[in-house]
């Protein structure tokens, strides 16, 4: 069965420091990978997605993620964190070749930004 693991429940980063959020997946086919961000009490906003091509994907708000097939990972990075990045981040995986998305989400990583 498909699964997504985000091993870090909470991460605290100083403002201006770099960030890496980990995501590992278990999937039997070529995956379609996403990172979403959720501010408190809000819906989810897509940061970036990967389905083929360059394994380093650029997203909104200065985020990027790298797909590493050999490690079954899709880690999210940002070189310099801003206080407004404090939120919960979800990694998700889905099937590439269906007419609809049936995504499996990780349990999320809550990012805290210290001054």
């Amino acid at each position, binding site marked *: 069965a498909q699964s997504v693991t985000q091993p870090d429940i909470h991460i605290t980063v100083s403002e201006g420091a770099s960030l890496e959020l980990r995501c590992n997946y278990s999937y039997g086919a070529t995956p379609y990978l996403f990172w979403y961000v959720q501010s408190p009490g*809000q819906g989810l906003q*897509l940061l970036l997605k990967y389905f083929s091509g360059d394994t380093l994907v650029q997203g909104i708000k200065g985020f990027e993620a790298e797909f590493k097939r050999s490690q079954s990972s899709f880690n999210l990075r940002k070189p310099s964190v801003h206080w407004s990045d404090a939120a919960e981040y979800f990694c998700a995986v889905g099937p590439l070749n269906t007419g609809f998305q049936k995504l499996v989400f990780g349990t999320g990583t809550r990012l805290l930004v210290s001054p």
Partner: protein
Amino acid sequence: SQTIHQWPATLVQPVGSPLSLECTVEGTSNPNLYWYRQAAGRGLQLLFYSVGIGQISSEVPQNLSASRPQDRQFILSSKKLLLSDSGFYLCAWSVGGRDEQYFGPGTRLTVT
């Protein structure tokens, strides 16, 4: 442009009462529609999805049901709420297999 609406934004209901949450999408046709539940400290759990009017697929056995009476309307219902139904309910839509899912603002349900 496309927008997705959910209402109500918050809801407090007693155990055993009925539930109806509504989701509507504007600016697109024949979307795929999804209902998720997010419990505190947990990820998103897919409850139902629909690829067309009247077509509902259930992912998790529970006392909830979903209906799609119109192309861009998706309703989540229950006849009798349980305490365990408390959570944050998110509706989402997508078009095609490679497009992202767009999420609504969510409904916070507290069952007392």
